[in-house]
């Protein structure tokens, strides 16, 4: 019974973080929210007695995705609608 | 002997979980980045170390791995706290101070207003 309540609380937290990640204009904050999603999801897999999936989720979701997205934000734009920077990047890519 | 170990372990787990909760509450209540860092890193470090030591007391065959985890947390958590505080200092954040002296308060208000303009950037 206590596990069901804990799973429900964690699912509500995941949904809140996912809605935040979708609606956020700042891409760095969206990246952090993605890290939080996979962080809580790893605890959830652990609670459902699948430690191998939790290990993979912790390795890929928490570390690899966050680091790659942060490097991507560093190399491109941070806010979603910085139009002049987008033009610069287009001209740099071509 | 086993009963004493269980009592010590249960007490440590309770203290650790209460410290974890107090650290998260400090993050929610504190007014400033540096205060939040203080509450959210130091109290949480003590809470996690105490809880893992309590689990090690409850089943003594786990003590070795619990000690490895405790040593890693004791090294890594202050390191990340230091890196964050350094990043905030380099970005030009100032701690928020409330003072009764009028001149000091005006100076802090000026800093605060300049921060609010920069808030769009970061």
């Amino acid at each position, binding site marked *: 019974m206590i596990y069901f309540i804990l799973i429900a609380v964690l699912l509500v937290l995941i949904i809140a973080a996912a809605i935040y990640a979708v609606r956020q204009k700042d891409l760095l904050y969206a990246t952090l929210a993605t890290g939080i999603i996979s962080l809580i999801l790893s605890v959830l897999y652990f609670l459902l007695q699948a430690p191998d999936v939790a290990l993979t989720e912790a390795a890929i979701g928490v570390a690899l995705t966050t680091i790659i997205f942060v490097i991507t934000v560093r190399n491109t734009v941070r806010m979603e609608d910085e139009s002049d920077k987008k033009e610069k990047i287009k001209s740099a890519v071509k | 002997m086993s009963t004493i170990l269980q009592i010590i372990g249960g007490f440590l787990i309770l203290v650790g979980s209460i410290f974890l909760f107090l650290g998260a509450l400090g993050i929610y209540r504190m007014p400033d980045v540096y205060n939040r860092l203080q509450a959210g890193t130091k109290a949480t470090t003590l809470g996690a170390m105490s809880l893992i030591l309590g*689990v090690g007391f409850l089943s003594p065959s786990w003590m070795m791995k619990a000690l490895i985890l405790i040593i890693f947390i004791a090294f890594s958590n202050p390191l990340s706290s230091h890196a964050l505080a350094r990043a905030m200092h380099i970005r030009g954040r100032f701690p928020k101070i409330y003072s009764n002296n009028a001149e000091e308060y005006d100076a802090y208000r000026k800093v605060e207003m300049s921060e609010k303009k920069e808030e769009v950037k970061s």
Partner: protein
Amino acid sequence: MIYVFYIALFFMALGMIFSLIRFVKGPTAGDRTVALDTLTTIGVAAMVLLAYMFHRFIYVDVALVYAVLGFIGVIVIARYLEGAL
């Protein structure tokens, strides 16, 4: 003894909720990163406690890997905010 575990899990879930509220509200990037760091530490502690509740010794390894990788993520974000990445 089992009620101690329930009380500890209750406090940790409450702490997760509070730090997620700070993550959503926090005005600057530093607040959000601090909230992420706190969530990582609470998650590690919760994993160790759940491993004892399930009576599986091998589950502690997940908590160890999780602690290492969360630390690396927070360091990378801090270096980016510093402007030195």
